[in-house]
């Protein structure tokens, strides 16, 4: 899940309009940018889509960390294509957010000065090549778990962005698993890398779904507006149930001694992540928070002259064209 802990904004709109809006949502209508919508719906969506977009952008960094060191030409090409897809997802999502009356530059500035967040997972380091497998397998796997239902979300542009994104994400997940297969069936050192990647990425992946529903006080309004489709615990359970057999197939051990199949509930019992660690990461104390934000700030600051130059040129061309008419 790329958007975590999105608080629903309070809304103070005309109760009649609100009721009519809810009828449209309940009937499964898609809300389009020009339609009336409650202020809280608009603001919550800006936060959610914006955070999702930022996650795609910051998410380039941990994978970009390995593009130059990819072990073969084919792996390098696949990773480049993947990171390019992520940047493309960021672009669709910023466009979807812009239909709600915010600009991409405004969103970017809120990311850079810390007013907006991105997914906690990208504050963890990528230390070996196996991490490229684990990111695809676990991180994209968790993202898909959340994004597939969001294809049915009530806001039209977001729903359409999700449909495109999901197609590419499932391809990424397969690529990640393919790397893990090679590693898990490889040399002793490669097996060790694969297990180490799973050890480090497992709990941060479980955190991607956000804290337990019992503690998520803001979910209810988002669920009724259909901008959140499932509970956090439900999706986390589904992810564990799907992923454990995949780990077994790889011959890897999920780093949870209490993991056990529960026949009665038809799912695994498992240990939840350390939520203190999660909140520390959100507060900026994850292993890579400072580097990630510093890298994005540097890119933005160093690029200012390029953006200004290209804008100035476009303006000159426009003026020249007008003068010629």
């Amino acid at each position: 899940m790329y958007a975590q802990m999105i608080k629903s904004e309070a809304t103070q709109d005309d109760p009649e309009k609100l009721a009519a809006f809810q009828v449209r949502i309940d009937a499964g209508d898609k809300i389009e940018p020009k339609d009336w919508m409650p202020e809280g719906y608009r603001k919550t969506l800006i936060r959610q889509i914006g955070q999702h977009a930022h996650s795609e952008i910051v998410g380039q960094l941990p994978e970009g960390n390995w593009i130059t060191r990819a072990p073969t030409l084919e792996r390098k090409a696949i990773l480049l294509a993947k990171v390019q897809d992520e940047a493309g997802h960021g672009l669709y999502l910023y466009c979807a957010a812009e239909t709600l009356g915010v600009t991409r530059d405004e969103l970017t500035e809120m990311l850079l000065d810390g007013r907006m967040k991105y997914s906690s997972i990208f504050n963890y380091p990528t230390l070996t090549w196996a991490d490229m497998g684990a990111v695809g397998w676990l991180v994209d796997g968790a993202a898909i778990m959340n994004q597939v239902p969001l294809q049915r979300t009530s806001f039209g542009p977001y729903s359409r962005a999700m449909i495109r994104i999901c197609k590419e994400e499932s391809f990424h997940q397969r690529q990640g698993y393919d790397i893990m297969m090679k590693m898990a069936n490889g040399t002793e050192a490669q097996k060790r890398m694969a297990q180490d990647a799973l050890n480090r990425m497992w709990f941060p992946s479980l955190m991607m779904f956000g804290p337990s529903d019992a503690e998520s006080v803001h979910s209810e309004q988002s669920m009724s507006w259909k901008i959140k489709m499932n509970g956090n615990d439900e999706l986390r359970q589904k992810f564990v149930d799907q992923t454990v057999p995949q780990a077994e197939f790889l011959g890897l051990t999920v780093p949870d001694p209490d993991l056990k199949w529960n026949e009665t509930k038809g799912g695994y019992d498992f240990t939840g992540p350390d939520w203190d660690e999660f909140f520390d990461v959100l507060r900026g104390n994850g292993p890579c928070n400072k580097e990630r934000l510093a890298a994005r700030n540097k890119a933005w600051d160093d690029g200012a002259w390029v953006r200004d130059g290209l804008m100035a040129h476009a303006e000159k061309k426009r003026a020249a064209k007008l003068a010629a008419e």
Partner: protein
Amino acid sequence: MSTADPYFDFLCRMGDNTLILGHRVSEWCGHSPVLEEDIALANIALDLIGQTQMWLGLAAEVEGKGRTADDLAMLRDVWDFRSALIVEQPNGDFGQTLMRQFLFDTWHLLMLQGLTKSCEPRVAEIAAKAVKEVMYHVERSGDTVIGLGDGTEESHTKIQAALDLMWPYVGELFTPDAVDEAMLAAGIAPDLTEMRKTFEAQVSAVMAEATLTIPDSRFAHKGGKSGFQHTEHLGHLLTNMQWLQRAYPGANW
């Protein structure tokens, strides 16, 4: 400095240029000035790495010693690389990256257009695929050079400095040596001296629109495509690129 087979050397030149430049461009991932540039740079790097697979794949076949494209990319040391000096130049600022790209792209497109008429059908085939991608590269890098040259005073100053810095690396691309002459004589590759005339016309037109001044010097660094004397930068680039293959020999990735 060349190996016994100029055809093998020539194929390595093509593949090493795309490999090293693709590597350099991929270093921008996540760090570029604007999201559209992140996407475009990744796309260009991807095209270049794809072309590398084709050129080095053919080189390995022609060599006939059982090596693969990956072996050539990951297990040769600096002196065996046949890439021109321009592609191993560090990224510098975005202006330097784009100027390096534009100058290389313009050469690359002319070279590939010539190679589509090669008497070696495999070469003509690869060139025909690559030429479609590189037409887009040169259009984009040319437009960006124009935009930055004719943008603000700051962008103009920076992109002019980039042109001054990169220009001495252009000559090597067009100075024929024994390998180039053998390729021309065999009908495999086009005439570099002829190509340079078209290059100068094309580059001059873009620079004029960009309000940039081409340095009044034909001085050219050399030693990349022959492998005689690369810059210090290439060793560091290879250290990074080849690390996994060197640290874990024989592993399957």
